[in-house]
């Protein structure tokens, strides 16, 4: 430990966490895509992780089995918010079948970072909420 000069430490050891928090994740967290309310949504669903307070609302406009619009509102950790930002980008304009078939692994791949056991709930809140919205309101 370099206690005498702590600031040196912080710069020399960034690489490890940069792995976990790639710039892309931070970018989606700080500048989320598709983050707005849709007043004329055909489908809407809330998702929450009660233990950590992550919460999102998904809005969809679905026409002829196609996702014409998908947006969200919410708040939470970088992983949960980047995940939903990335996922909405991915699903825009796609068929419902495509959305239904998205797996947990697909979401991890979208995030492109290692997700530890304790963070799986954060990472998957997005897809769980989208699939609930689609399935419940059909």
């Amino acid at each position, binding site marked *: 430990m370099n206690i005498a000069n702590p600031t040196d430490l912080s710069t020399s050891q960034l690489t490890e966490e940069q792995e976990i928090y790639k710039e892309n994740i931070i970018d989606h967290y700080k500048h989320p895509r598709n983050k707005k309310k849709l007043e004329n949504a055909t489908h809407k669903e809330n998702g929450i992780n009660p233990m*950590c307070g992550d919460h999102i609302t998904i809005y969809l406009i679905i026409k002829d089995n196609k996702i014409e619009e998908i947006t969200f509102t919410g708040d939470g950790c970088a992983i949960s918010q980047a995940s939903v930002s990335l996922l909405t980008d991915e699903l825009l304009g796609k068929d419902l079948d495509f959305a239904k078939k998205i797996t947990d692994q697909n979401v991890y791949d979208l995030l492109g970072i290692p997700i530890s056991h304790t963070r799986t709930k954060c990472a998957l809140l997005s897809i769980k909420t989208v699939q609930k919205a689609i399935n419940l309101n059909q």
Partner: protein
Amino acid sequence: MNKLNSQKIKSDFPILNQKINRHDLVYLDNGATTQKPNAVINAISNYYSHDNSNTHRSVHELASRATIQYEHARTITAKFIGAKTEEIIFTSGTTDSLNKLVNSLKHQLKKGDEIVLTEMEHHSNIVPWQQVAKETGAVIKWIPITDDFRLDLTTISKLITTKTKILSLTHVSNVLGTINPVKEIIKEAKSINQNVIAIVDAAQSVPHISVNVTDLGCDFLAFSAHKAVGPMGVGVLFGKSQLLVNLEPNHTGGGMVLEVTKDNTTFNQAPYKFEAGTPNVAGAVGLAAALTYLSKLTMNAIEQQMHDLTVYGLEQLNTVHGLNIIGSKDAKNRAPVFSFTIKGMHPHDIGEILNSHGVAIRGGHHCAMPLFKRLKLNGASRASAYIYNSKEDIDQLIVAIKAAQKIFGVDK
């Protein structure tokens, strides 16, 4: 007074000698649970290696040893908090102590009776009372907190009335670190209504400051071994002997009776009537070893060390740009429990990046959701220090926080 040597203390705790993500482990999650010294680990291991048996039941040598050790643990615990031996009931922890107590006291509650709690309680000192209030029609009232995260003592004279049956409050807040003037509060409450039953949640105070039940003037007090370098799964409920006499046990079965017929049962006396079933003897032995370990360091020296860490921690955290301390910035009557939020970062992300630096802290609402609602916060990070932590550990915490802020671009 002797000063603690945190480096030497650290060497008593084998778990602390490891690397996490290639960094020396800096364990700052002591509010959740503390680590265990060799003295405790060995006491439990020795008990199971040499003396294990059920207690108070058989006449053989091992049964005698187990019984003697269990009762010796009771004596050590009683001494540690200034109680009489027969006033110590072993439970599985603070939560268990409070639940047992609340469910025994509910027979004394009726519609319109008042239960006074504070806004800084842990869920374990809220939820059982809510359940009982629903059942009995009793009403819960709350001592509010001030803008300096302390109890608003000016409200007590209004909140305590002739209808008050219960005053139950935490000694040290697990979120704010505030050390409440429990003695003065109980004194004032009892001067307004001498029948008020005063209960103290000492889960966070027993590890940090010397606690004496006689001095506090409380009727009941609860704590957990695991937050005071003892094992998990064992805790204490202290009750004044004259109150335990008339208190009905709500857990019944073997080990707590004098005579059982098909129609009726005569209970044993306190504390035994509250300890139904086979007790956690190894847990009690571990607790005794823990309290003996702390006694050797002396609670006075621990208190001083905790105060020094509080001063240093507050000073250092205050220098971090964008960091908001959730708790008083005055180290007086405050434990080294540092809850904080960082602008632009969620507690989970902070915790994860700190972990990659080997620094263990907690994030979330810390089982105190009403407090977070009052503070208008969704959650916070919490670094909580204990006897093996040094100023260097705080330095490492600050380094890791700054690194996290850099990654999120909120360091300036």
